[in-house]
Structures are given as structure tokens and as C-alpha cells.
């Protein structure tokens, strides 16, 4: 037992290694936060745009959006990362790892956000749109002042949970060599021949996302 505790402290919670790896992990954390923030904002915006477009009830636009959503919901995100970073350059489209990751997370996340926002918009009776129109509100005004404020209640729980998933997905950028938290932890693991940085990466995510996990549960219970 004592041996196991000793091995655990030496390999998983080694303070000396933590100190040595601090700069590597700090850089990683910053990249993870930047990637999360940029991708989350863009994914929400694109999702919102697509969901609004479906409200126009144009057959062709609907069909395109449905294909997009289905395709991106079916593809494992890591495959998408690899297509963007390793396959697109063959046809002359290449971008640095950070923007490849942003593009992947945004296109993937937007597919889920579109579904969530659409469910929110559809939860509001059609009569309201017509009433707004009769009152002389434009399409944009109807969305902004009538539909969206009500939809928030339906949308908030799944949108929070989807944001959580998106942030967790940023670690996949390690496979395209972006120096985010996991990649940096792996580097430090190799450099110091000690897995403490990997455990640290797990703990940092735990600290960062635990409140969001709790919030998701709370919102589901409150509005569910």
C-alpha cells in the first residue's frame, strides 16, 4: 500500500515535474482557452444564422442545411480534423493548425447548434410570426424582438451542454500538432519521462469544466 501511494505521488503528482512543466502547460492552457472562445462564438453565430435561414422555409436552402447538419453530425470530429489539416492541402487549401482547428470546431459545432436553435424557434407558435408581420415588423425585427427572447428557455439547457462538448473537443487539435493543453502535456511527459503533466491536464479540465457540468444538470432540471 505504501509502495503504491509512493508510486502514485512520484508519477502522478510529482511537484518537481509540475514546476518544470509549468511554462509548457501555461502556454497550452492559453491556446486551449483561445481556441475554445473563438470556436464557440463562431459556432454559435453560424448555428444561429443557419437556424434563422430555415425559418424562411425555402425548400432548396432547407435541403442544403439538412445535408450539412446530417453530414457533420455523422462524422467523428477527429476525422474532420484530419480531413481539414491533412487532406485539404492536396487541393491547395492549407492553413495553420490553429485556424484548421477553428474551422473544424466551428463547422462541427454549428451543425449541433443549428438543431438546438431550430428546436427553439419551432417551439414558438407560427401565429406569433404572422402577428409580428401584420404589425409591420421586418424579418430581422421579428427574430430579434419576438422569437429569440422566447426561444432562449428551450435553447439554454442543450446549448450549454453543447458548449461543454465543444470545449472538450478542443483537445483533438493535439492530433494536428496544435500546442494546446493536451499536446503540451504530452510534450512535457516525453521531456521529463513522467506522466504528471498528463494528470495535470486532466485536472485542469476538471477544474475548468466541472462548474459547467453542474450548470448543465441544473438547467436541465429547471427547464426540463
Amino acid at each position, binding site marked *: 500500500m505504501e509502495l503504491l501511494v509512493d508510486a502514485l505521488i512520484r508519477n502522478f503528482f510529482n511537484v518537481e515535474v509540475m514546476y518544470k512543466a509549468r511554462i509548457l502547460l501555461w502556454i497550452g492552457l492559453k491556446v486551449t482557452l483561445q481556441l475554445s472562445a473563438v470556436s464557440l462564438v463562431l459556432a454559435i453565430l453560424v448555428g444561429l444564422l443557419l437556424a434563422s435561414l430555415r425559418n424562411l422555409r425555402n425548400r432548396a436552402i432547407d435541403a442544403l442545411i439538412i445535408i450539412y447538419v446530417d453530414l457533420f453530425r455523422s462524422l467523428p470530429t477527429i476525422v474532420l480534423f484530419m480531413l481539414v489539416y491533412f487532406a485539404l492541402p492536396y*487541393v*491547395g487549401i492549407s492553413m495553420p493548425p490553429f485556424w484548421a482547428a477553428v474551422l473544424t470546431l466551428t463547422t462541427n459545432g454549428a451543425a449541433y447548434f443549428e438543431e438546438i436553435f431550430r428546436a427553439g424557434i419551432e417551439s414558438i407558435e407560427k401565429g406569433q410570426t404572422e402577428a409580428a408581420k401584420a404589425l409591420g415588423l421586418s424579418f430581422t425585427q421579428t427574430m430579434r424582438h419576438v422569437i429569440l427572447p422566447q426561444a432562449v428557455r428551450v435553447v439554454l439547457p442543450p446549448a450549454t451542454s453543447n458548449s461543454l462538448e465543444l470545449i472538450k473537443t478542443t483537445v483533438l487539435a493535439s492530433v494536428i500538432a496544435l500546442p494546446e493543453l493536451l499536446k503540451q502535456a504530452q510534450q512535457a511527459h516525453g521531456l521529463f519521462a513522467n506522466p504528471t503533466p498528463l494528470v495535470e491536464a486532466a485536472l485542469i479540465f476538471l477544474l475548468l469544466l466541472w462548474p459547467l457540468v453542474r450548470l448543465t444538470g441544473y438547467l436541465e432540471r429547471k427547464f426540463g
Partner: protein
Amino acid sequence: MEIHDLIHYFFNGHVFLETLPQLVRGLWVTIQIAFLSIVMGFVLGLVLAIIRVAVKRSTNTWPIRLLNLPIAFYVDALRSIPPLITLVVVYYALPYLGIYFPRFWAAVLTFAVVLSAFAEEIFRAGIESIGRGQVEAARSLGLSYLQTMRYVIIPQGFRVAIPPLTSRTIAITKDVSLASVIGVADLLKAARASQAFLANPTPLVSAALLFTLVFLPLVRISMYLERRLAK
């Protein structure tokens, strides 16, 4: 970008046919990992949910209720930590403690525990959606605790649990491709290897198409179930 390049690099028939056997072999590994993880994850999740509800309902004394803290922590931790990090810790860090798993089983174990955390939450919500009166009625009819669970609670709770369970199962099956990161010879790994070998990304595109072929019907079914239950 010329259309000729697009076909040559993304939809190269020759490369496709040459690499298809490897991709199918990879897909079979992906299916095996997914199947084992789902079975183990569901069983573990159900057991944890039953323990948690039983402890919560059986008594109000706090020392016994504390038994649920480790389960709550287990569930929250696995929901907060990205599965890829869990996988890397299981495969690269645990051996330092003398706990060694082959790649295949490291993947199965990781996805099983991650799924069990989500399944526990879903099953618990399902069980708790059934009124206490039913438990009391079953018990007064002489059914044991296990019989009540088996014949009264679980069949009903399962129906509430099916839509979220389906979408979680799809999500974890998609996560199985992460196993390629620790070198498991799954579909994605096979595609990457062929791509590097032939300097042509067609295998990657083929893998994407194979995944779509497998998952698209599942995604559709899960969306249908969600909508039906919502009504």
C-alpha cells in the same frame, strides 16, 4: 483548384479499391471496440444508478448518504475530462503504476467508463421519473427490491432513457476513432496509414464516407426518437 485534382486526390478510384480491404478491417476493429464499450458502459452505468437511487431513498442518515459522493465525483469527473485525455492517461500514465492494458483494451476500458458516467445520469433520471408510489405498491405486493427494479422500475425508466441514451451511444461510438491516437488499428488509423503510404488522401475521404454510411441512419433514428418523445 482544378476538378481534376479534386478527383485525383479525394475520389481516386484506383486508390479506393486498393485500400478498401484495409479500411474494412479497420472498421471491424472500430465496431468491436464500440460494441464492448457500449455493453460494459451500460451495465456499469445501470449498476451505479441503482446504487445511487437505493442509497438516496433508503435512508436519511448522512453517513450512509456519503456513500454516493464517490459515485457523484466519478460521474462529474468523467463528464468534465475530455475522453481523449482519459484515454491518454489510461494508456500512457497507468503503466507507471504497474497497471498495463494492451491498446485495444485501454480503448474499451476508457470508452466504457466514459459512457458509464453519462449512462448513470440518464438511468438515474429514468428511475427517478417513476413515482415512489409504484415502488411502495410493488413492495406491498410482496416483490423484493430486486424484483421491483427488474419488473416495475427498469422497464418504465428505460423508455424515458432511450432518446438520450441513443444519442450518447452514437457520441461514444464516434469517439472510438480517438483510439487511433494510441495506435489501435481502427478505421481511422488504417486510413491514415494508407494515406501516408500512397501520398494520396483518398483513404481518408473513404473513411469519412464509411463513417457517414454507418452513422447517418443512427443519427436520423436518434433525432426521430427525440422528436417522438418530446410530443
